[in-house]
């Protein structure tokens, strides 16, 4: 009789062992990374398209840009607005027209582009301000006279006139990100999606379009470190999909749909924290005044009177967001309590008849998201009620964000568009997108009003809050009068994160990737 040795390997035990080994090898790297808190996985609502601080297109790009191209200062995370230095050792306002700065001595650009210098600061700021470059963010540096280089690391920012938003909405945004003069000139003046000469707390190491962007800590960064070794940014357009991803454990942090907030607050997923933050964003229906069918202001005013704003907001957000009355959020100078048009279908029908526009058909372009689609369908029903046929056209984010661009071929066909802009904590950052210079850039309504522009310029220099309040209210009144705008809401920001993560967020809930830390 023979006995089977105990260490003998049967076919079944071999398969079991191999299976267990395979499972272990697939899990081990993930376990190791998550145990050390090295990888943070977050969702962004759109994929990146441009990584140039002067030509960026969306908020998720802002977050990546300020992580890979060191900005002079960044917003501070927390519940009050403030800023902290990143690339600068010191920065201070010497007088109303001069800001002095000194760079950290050991910030270098990757790819062999050498040390970051004051000359790079001058180049980075002046290329945004230079009208010849047609940066949509030129308004951030509207008051710039010049950047004077004092020595390798120091310089002075000279302004033509006092500029109130400088410390609120210019310096803490990617408008203060410093790029390598040499690298950008070699690239022909613009950075696309393959950044060279990175200099920030993180480096962009991988971008798989529509799938993920990977940021890794910059090994040569000598100053305040980001909280995670790696940050994976997953573009998911639909917030409902992102919520499912979060609950499946694939994400550590995501914005949620505003309409999901009541449910999530009542019943948060295990091991998660649900946040609700006041939002500065604004959602509105834009009406292109240069479109052939909408050139008559009476038609545009008819559309304003046709739309039942509270019903649109309630239907889209299920009561989680309040009705907004303009582009400036509550708490900021210029915030309004009401719009100058009311919901009046009778008046709307009369205006349409007066304009000879009975039987009008229009197209409403929206981003392909559930909240927008719901809002659009209420708008469609409201318009049908006054005799306007409205066709809803859903667009993915890549298409949507270029619809009104004069570079494209659709901007004159654009009729109605449901939009949402995020905002920085100064009213000028809302009004700037509707100035004549922005026609065909971000001003898709093609609203072109000289008085509005003059008031915008006045507001930039006016430091008295009461006078600013008056200026910005008047500007929104002009927007109402043009018939180009129907304002809906400022929303709220809903976010959810694992309780093992301490998110770095601005007071309005926008993320600051480098400030995310382990809880």
């Amino acid at each position, binding site marked *: 009789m023979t006995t089977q040795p105990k260490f003998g390997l049967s076919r079944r035990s071999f398969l079991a062992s191999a299976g267990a080994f395979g499972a272990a090898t697939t899990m081990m790297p993930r376990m190791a990374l998550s145990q050390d808190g090295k990888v943070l996985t977050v969702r962004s609502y759109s994929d990146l398209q441009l990584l140039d601080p002067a030509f960026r297109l969306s908020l998720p790009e802002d977050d990546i840009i300020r992580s890979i191209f060191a900005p002079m200062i960044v917003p501070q995370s927390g519940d009050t607005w403030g800023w902290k230095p990143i690339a600068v050792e010191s920065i201070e306002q010497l007088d109303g027209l001069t800001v002095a700065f000194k760079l950290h001595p050991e910030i270098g650009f990757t790819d062999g582009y050498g040390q970051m210098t004051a000359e790079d600061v001058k180049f980075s700021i002046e290329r945004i301000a230079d009208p010849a470059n047609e940066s949509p963010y030129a308004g951030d540096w509207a008051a710039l006279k010049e950047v004077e280089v004092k020595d390798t690391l120091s310089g002075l920012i000279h302004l033509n006139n006092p500029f109130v938003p400088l410390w609120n909405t210019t310096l803490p945004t990617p408008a203060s990100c410093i790029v390598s003069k040499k690298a950008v000139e070699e690239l022909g003046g613009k950075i696309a999606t393959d950044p060279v000469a990175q200099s920030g707390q993180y480096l962009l190491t991988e971008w798989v379009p529509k799938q993920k962007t990977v940021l890794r800590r910059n090994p040569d960064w000598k100053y305040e470190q980001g909280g995670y070794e790696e940050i994976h940014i997953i573009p998911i357009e639909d917030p409902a999909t992102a919520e499912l991803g979060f609950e499946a454990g694939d994400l550590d942090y995501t914005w949620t749909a505003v309409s*999901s907030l009541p449910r999530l607050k009542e019943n948060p997923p295990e091991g998660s924290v649900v946040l609700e933050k006041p939002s500065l964003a604004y959602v509105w229906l834009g009406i292109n005044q240069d479109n052939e069918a909408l050139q008559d202001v009476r038609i545009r005013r008819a559309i304003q009177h046709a739309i039942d704003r509270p019903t649109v907001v309630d239907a889209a957000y*299920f009561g989680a967001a309040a009705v907004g009355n303009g582009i400036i959020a509550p708490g900021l100078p210029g915030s309004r309590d009401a719009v100058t048009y009311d919901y009046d279908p009778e008046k709307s029908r009369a205006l349409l008849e007066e304009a000879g526009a009975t039987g009008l058909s229009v197209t409403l372009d929206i981003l392909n998201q*559930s909240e927008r689609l719901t809002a659009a369908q209420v708008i469609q*029903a409201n318009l049908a009620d006054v005799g306007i046929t409205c066709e809803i056209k859903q667009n993915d984010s890549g298409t949507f964000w270029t619809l009104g661009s004069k570079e494209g071929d659709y901007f004159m066909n654009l009729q109605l568009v449901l939009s949402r802009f995020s905002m920085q904590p100064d009213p000028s950052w809302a009004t700037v997108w509707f100035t004549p210079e922005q026609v065909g850039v971000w001003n898709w309504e093609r609203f072109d009003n000289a008085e509005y522009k003059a008031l915008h310029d006045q507001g930039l220099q006016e430091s008295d809050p009461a006078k600013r309040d008056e200026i910005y209210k008047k500007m929104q009144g002009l927007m109402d009068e043009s018939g180009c705008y129907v304002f809906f809401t400022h929303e709220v920001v809903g976010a959810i994160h694992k309780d093992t993560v301490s998110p770095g967020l601005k007071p309005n809930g926008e993320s600051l990737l480098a400030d995310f830390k382990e809880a």
Partner: protein
Amino acid sequence: MRRLLREPLGVFGLSLVVLVIFGAVFADLLSAYDPTRINPRVRFQGPSGDHLLGTDQLGRDLFSRVLYGGRIALFVALVSTAVSLVIGIVLGLIAGYGPRWLDNLMILLFDSMKSFPTVMLALALVTIMGPSLTAVMVVVVLVTVPGYARIIRTQTIAIKTSEFVTAAQSMGASNGRILFKHILPNVIGPLVILASMDIPVVIAIEAGMSFLGLGVRPPTPSWGSILNDGFSSIRDTAWIAIAGGLPIIITTLGFTFLGETLRDVFDPRLKGR
């Protein structure tokens, strides 16, 4: 028909298909509500006597939307399948009966069309045409035509050397007469069965494109768009997604069982495969 009725699976499939067609045809009689009428005051109501399948996020009656959505699904399925059949038959006959070089060229064309992933093709077309019912139907036609054409071509090649074809040729019959009077009646049978089995695929394409926002435009009800409406609130109000998904399942099962039974009836050699 008698043979079909002897097959329980076939009867079941036929019943489901009849049910769906009946619901779609008599939607205005069966539903008490306008499927596009918005009433936010009654949004997210569960199934009840007032609303048999509940209401959606805009307070629209889901039972009405499902019935009217059936019209869209069947319209797309029947029209685009018919168009595909006609195009497929003509191209298949030309490829099978024409000269060798033309056959090779057309096979290359069919294979190229077939190699496009459906979703990519849909996205490309919608980018050009914009989302619409027409775009959905064009996608369906482009996806299904190569398959039909290939089958007709193969059958035509097999049959074109038959004695009755040779006889027609020797009697001076024109190519058109030979193709449509002599060859077509002998090759069309299997294709009709195949087409009936493709109908659920077509319905799934329409629903899928509408789910992605690439198909039927709101507020027109479509099973795919109902499913999409329910997707964002599936954990709280699952009945919306169920209302959108159930008719897709019923229709798919119905046409599949019916098609398979028809195939078995007409070609018993394939039974059970």
